[in-house]
C-alpha cells in the first residue's frame, strides 16, 4: 500500500484497530473497521450523520464497548478489565461536542481534578500545569470562574485544556465545533491547529473541511458503519474515488 506508507508520519503505531464490529442491539453500527494510526498523525473522520464516526472514536477509549475485533491503544489491548480501561483513558484525551465541563467546579478545578486524583499530582503542581495549559488556550484569566459564566468557545477551549492537563499521548475530538456559534468556531480550531503543529496524535470527527485541508494528513470518509474512503486531504477533496464520497463532498462543499 504505497498510499498508506506515504501518509505515515512515523513508524510507531499509536492505535491499531483490527476487524472491529459493534452493534446497538440488532443494529450493526460499525462493520469490520480496520485502522492503524501512527504517532503524530492528524486524522479527520468525516461522513453523514449516523455513519458511525463518533461511535468509532468513542470505542477507542471504551466509552462504547465493541463486540468483535481488537483495539490496541499505545500497546495496550482494550479488554473488559476496568484497570486496563482506566489506564487507557488517562492516556487518551477526549473533547466532546457539548464540552461536558463539570459545572460545579471552577475552570481551574476542572483542569486539576483528574491530575490530582488519577495521576496523584500534588495540588500546587497540578495548578501550575493547569495554568500553563489555560494560558496556551488563551484563557488564564478565567481560571476562577465557573463554566456557566463562559461562552461556548471558551468552554470548549477549557475542555481541551482539561484534557491536555493529563498529558495525553492521543487526543480524540468528537465534533468539537458543532455546538458553537459561527463566531466561536475559529478560536477552537486555532487551538486545535496549534496542537497539531506540536505533533499531537489527533483523531477528529468534524465537518470543518477547511480544518481537514489545512491540518489533517489523512481524511477518512465513513458511511453506514464502514470506512468508505481514506486519502491525503488534497487527493480526498480534489479526486474522490467513490460515488458516495463525491455525493457527500458536493453536498457539504456546495454552498
Amino acid at each position, binding site marked *: 500500500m504505497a498510499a498508506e506508507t506515504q501518509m505515515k508520519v512515523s513508524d510507531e503505531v499509536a492505535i491499531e484497530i483490527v476487524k472491529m464490529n459493534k452493534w446497538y442491539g440488532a443494529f450493526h453500527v460499525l462493520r469490520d473497521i480496520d485502522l492503524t494510526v501512527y504517532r503524530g498523525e492528524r486524522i479527520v473522520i468525516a461522513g453523514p450523520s449516523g455513519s458511525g464516526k463518533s461511535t468509532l472514536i468513542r470505542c477507542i477509549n471504551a466509552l462504547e464497548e465493541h463486540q468483535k475485533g481488537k483495539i490496541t491503544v499505545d500497546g495496550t489491548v482494550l479488554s473488559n478489565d476496568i484497570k486496563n480501561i482506566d489506564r487507557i483513558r488517562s492516556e487518551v484525551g477526549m473533547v*466532546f461536542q457539548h464540552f461536558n465541563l463539570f459545572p*460545579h467546579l471552577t475552570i481551574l478545578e476542572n483542569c486539576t481534578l483528574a491530575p490530582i486524583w488519577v495521576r496523584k499530582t500534588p495540588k500546587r503542581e497540578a495548578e501550575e500545569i493547569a495554568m500553563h495549559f489555560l494560558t496556551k488556550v488563551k484563557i488564564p484569566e478565567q481560571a476562577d470562574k*465557573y463554566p456557566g459564566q463562559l461562552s461556548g468557545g471558551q468552554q470548549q477551549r477549557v475542555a481541551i485544556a482539561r484534557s491536555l492537563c493529563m498529558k495525553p499521548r492521543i487526543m480524540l475530538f468528537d465534533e468539537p465545533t458543532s455546538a458553537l456559534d459561527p463566531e466561536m468556531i475559529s478560536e477552537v480550531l486555532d487551538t486545535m491547529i496549534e496542537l497539531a503543529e506540536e505533533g499531537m496524535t489527533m483523531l477528529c470527527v468534524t465537518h470543518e473541511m477547511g480544518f481537514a485541508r489545512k491540518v489533517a494528513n489523512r481524511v477518512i470518509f465513513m458511511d453506514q458503519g464502514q470506512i468508505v474512503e481514506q486519502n491525503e486531504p488534497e487527493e480526498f477533496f480534489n479526486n474522490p474515488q467513490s460515488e458516495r464520497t463525491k455525493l457527500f463532498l458536493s453536498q457539504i462543499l456546495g454552498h
Partner: protein
Amino acid sequence: MSHDNIAFHRKHMLPEAPPPVTETGAIKWLRENLFSSIPNGILTVVSAYVVLTIAMAAAPWFFNGVWDSPSLSACREMLDGRTGACFAVLTERWNQLLFGFQYPSRLYWRPTLAFVLLFVAIAPVLFIKYTPRGLLVLTGLYPFIAYWLIWGGSIVVPVVALLGVLFGAFVYRRTMTASAGVAVIAGIVAAMVFWWAAGAVTAGLSGVMALEPVASRDMGGFMINLMLGVICVSLSLPFGILLALGRQSSMPIVKWICVAFIEFIRGVPLITLLFVANVVLAYFLPPGTTFDLILRVIIMITMFASAYIAEVIRGGLAALPRGQYEAADSLGLDYAQSMQLVILPQALRISIPGIVNVAVGLFKDTTLVSVISMFDIVGMIRGPILASTEWNGVYWELFGFAALLFFITCYGISQYSQWLERQLQTDHR
C-alpha cells in the same frame, strides 16, 4: 412615503440607557399587587376581613393567657369567665414536655448539654465553606459524646465504639486499593471483630468514668423526637445514597437487592414498620436478647427514610446529562472517584429540595412512635398530661405548643436548605 432611501449605516453605537423612571414606592406596590382589578380588589378586602376576624378572636385568647396556675380549674377561676388560654400547663409541665416524665430531673443538664453541643457539631457540616476543616472532628466525635451524655454509663462504651469505627476505617483505607466493595466489607468485619474483642477485654471496666445510666424507656418528650429526627436523618442520607447508586449498578444482584428493598419499604406504611419494631422483631431475636426499643425504632425509621431518599437521589442522578459521566470516564477517573467528585455533588444539589422534604416529613413522623407506647411529645400530651386530673381538657395550648416546636424546627430546616441551594448555584442558568 418613498422607498428609495432604505440604505442606512450606524455611525455611533448606542450607549446603555437606564430604564424609564416611573412612579415607585408603596402606592405603586399596592396598586399593582392588591388592587390591580375590581375582582382583585374585592378579594383583597374579603381576605383582609377574614384575617382580621381570626386575629381579633385569637388575640384575647392569647393575651389573656394565664401563665402561672397549678391546674386547669385554678386557671379558669383566674380567668373568671373571660376568654383566655391556660399556658400554665406549659410552664408547669415544661420538663415533662421536653424530657418525658421518667427522666431523672437532676440529670436534665445532660440531654440539655447534648442539645447545645449538637449545634457545635452540625455547624461545620452545615456551613462547610465557612468553617475550618478541622472542626469536622467535633462532628465525628459528637455521636459518641451525645450517647454518653444521654444514656450515661461508663465512658468505656462510647470510646470502644469510636475506636472500632476508627479501626474499621483504617482497614478500609488499607484495602481500598484492591477493590472498593471488598474494602467496605473488610472495614465492617474489622470493626465488628474489634468491638467483640474489646467488649470482652473491657467487660470489667463498667465503672470507669461512669455517668448515672438512664434506660431508654425512661426517655420521653420532645427530646425523643429530636433524637430520632437527628439520628435517622443523618443515617438515612448515606444509606439512601448507597441504595440509589446500587439501584443504578450494572451488577444485577446488587441492583435487585436495592430495588427489592426500596420497593418493599415504600410499599409499607411507617406505622406498620414501627409495630414490627415494637412487637414482631422480638420473635425473630434469640430468646433473652434485649434489644433496645429506641434502637429498634431508629433502625425502622432509618430504613424507611433511606428508601425515600434513595428515590429522590435517583431522580437527581437521572437529571444529570450523560456527558458528565462520559467526561469523568474519559479523564480516567474510576467509579468511586467519578461518583464522589463529579456525579454526586451535582446530583445531591439537584436533590436538596426532595431530601429536605423527606427529612422534614421524617422528623414530623417521629411523633408516630406515640402509638407504640413511647412517650414522645405527643405521647406525653395524650398520656400523662391530659390524663392527669389537673390538666384534663387543655388541648389547644398543648397541641399548639407541640405544633410550634415542630414548625420552628421544620421551617429552620427549610430556610437552611434554600440558603444552601443558593450557595451551590454555580451554573448561572
